[in-house]
């Protein structure tokens, strides 16, 4: 036996000398494989989801092609389906939600991040972040029993001020795009506030100090310097909220009125993509109908992907937490 300069050490030999069983017992490979499988499962599930949506909407896609996106008719009897009324309703309610939500949300975020004393700020932030946890169906519940009666009371004042615009014409039955828009705005405000507030807090304090040292008031330093610095992140939060609003189902279904027509007035009932799927899917008569509904789902899926993608590009650039 050749003389060895190293003492005989029991235990794992180095490098490739380790046998397969030894490596397996060590557990590293097993851990790697198992966790890798879990990560890959996510990819598989998502791919499967896209596949299923695509395949099961085939009937409808082949029949209507791209015109599906611009046709207004929704006639189950004649089996003529078009997505336009639902795209319209989805977009209108979401935009209305943003119009209400952005000023309220960004205003509150500015207050919480810049202007409020810290004790009040953290308490209120806590309450607002809890609002984000309230389930959609509960917003719908309150939409039906609280918001709609309130809007009924406000109908005359609104009409007297804004009744001359095409937005507020026609009869008001409570369930309407207006109600859906307002409920949606309450649902997205916590997200706008939460993300915007973090982005504003992340603005380096020397920016504020530079403005204050020039004699700016607190508001001027916030509005002229801090908010523009945080602009990208705030816009990202708005996009994320838009994506949420587009896909929101229950609260909208309960208050929108479920009428697949395109009408300019916000007082009129409408329909959103998520709402019709929720209402009709379980009892859809016939394969073509189901296929059309699934194609609607595909459209919604595509919409939210695009907007979420844009949002992440904006938020990732500014948030300190994001990392790859």
């Amino acid at each position, binding site marked *: 036996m050749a003389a060895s300069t190293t003492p005989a050490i029991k235990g794992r030999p180095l490098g490739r000398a380790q046998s397969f069983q030894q490596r397996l017992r*060590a*557990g*590293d490979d*097993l*851990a*790697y494989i198992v*966790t890798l499988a*879990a*990560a890959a*499962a*996510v*990819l598989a599930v*998502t791919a*499967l*989801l896209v596949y*299923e*949506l695509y*395949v*099961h909407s085939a009937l409808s896609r082949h029949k209507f092609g791209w015109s599906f996106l611009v046709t207004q008719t929704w006639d189950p009897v004649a089996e003529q389906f078009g997505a336009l009324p639902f795209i319209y309703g989805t977009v209108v309610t979401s935009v209305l939600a943003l119009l209400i939500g952005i*000023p*309220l*949300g960004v*205003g509150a975020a500015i*207050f*919480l991040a810049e*202007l*409020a004393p810290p004790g009040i700020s953290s308490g*209120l932030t*806590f*309450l607002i972040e809890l*609002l984000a*946890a*309230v*389930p*959609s*169906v*509960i917003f719908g*519940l*309150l939409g039906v*029993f609280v918001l709609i009666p309130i809007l009924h009371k406000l109908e005359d004042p609104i009409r007297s001020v804004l009744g001359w615009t095409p937005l507020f014409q026609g009869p008001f039955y409570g369930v309407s795009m207006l109600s859906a828009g307002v409920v949606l705005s309450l649902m997205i*405000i916590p997200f706008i*506030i939460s993300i915007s507030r973090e982005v504003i807090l992340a603005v380096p304090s020397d920016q504020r100090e530079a403005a204050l040292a020039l004699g700016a*008031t607190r*508001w001027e330093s916030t*509005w002229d310097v801090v908010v523009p610095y945080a602009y990208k992140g705030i816009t990202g939060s708005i996009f994320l909220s838009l994506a949420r609003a587009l*896909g929101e*189902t229950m609260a909208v279904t*309960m208050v929108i009125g479920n009428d697949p027509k395109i009408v300019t007035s916000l007082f009129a009932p409408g329909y959103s993509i*998520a709402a019709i799927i*929720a209402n009709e*899917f*379980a009892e859809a008569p016939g394969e073509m109908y189901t296929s059309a*509904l*699934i194609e609607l*789902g595909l459209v*919604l*899926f595509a919409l*939210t992907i695009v907007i*979420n993608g844009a949002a992440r590009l904006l938020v990732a650039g500014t948030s300190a937490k994001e990392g*790859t």
Partner: protein
Amino acid sequence: MAGRAMSFHVIRRKTVNAVMLSLTGLCTFIAAGTLLYILGYLFVHGGKNLSWDFFTKLPAPVGETGGGMANAILGSAKLLLLATAIGVPIGFLGGVYLAEFGGNTFAYVVRYVTDLLNGVPSIVIGIFAYTLIVLPQKHFSTMAGGFALSIMMIPIAIRSSEEFLRAVPLALREGAMALGASKSKAIWTVVIPAAKNGIMTGIMLNLARVAGETAPLIFTSLGNRFWSPGWEQPTASLPVMIYTYALGPYEDWHQQAWAAGFVLLTLVLAVNICARLILSRQAHVPR
């Protein structure tokens, strides 16, 4: 040179300052107040309709008053159990992969797809579960509903697990490995226990979110006015009952919807507050 008297210009700026402070404060109070109002309303209208019957009886036949939502409560519990059993392991293990073995292109793709899946509207996930399970089986089932909910849990479980695992300092891992632990042993015995608070709260928050989801259940687990033993039958669930009863024509149903809403909201908020308290206390632990 300015003397004691402020110029008009300065007064105007001071006024703008004060006005904007009030306006933004008003926005904040509206937002915070909404939550309190919702809670208060459900407490008043829902709380008074709560009774022992609510938790123990089945729904009364349509048109009759009385009855309860015992089957819906049990149904929700079963759905969440199934969702957790599928979603949490996959999510957690996926998070472990990203935190411990990530850094390559595959991990980047997984993160991207996870975010994608997270952004998919819940109704579309319902469609997915429908085509995958309901269609081949030709009937609605608890299993389909649980599966749909598990898909919703996965992205959040991955992201939160990864975040909390990453937050464990490198020094801890290296310390374990320097003592001879293999990488997987270090992960299992040191890193995961160090992150366990965060991971537990992550699961809690995930559950709370999914517990309130209605859309994916509407055409997977559907609903049921009776008990639904096993996993192959459609089942009632709390959120779907709220939805059905709220839109129904009976005043008694509306009352029950409020009661159910109150129960659901209380549970969801309780879990949320609990999770946040645990997290905030952890942040104060000196390292």
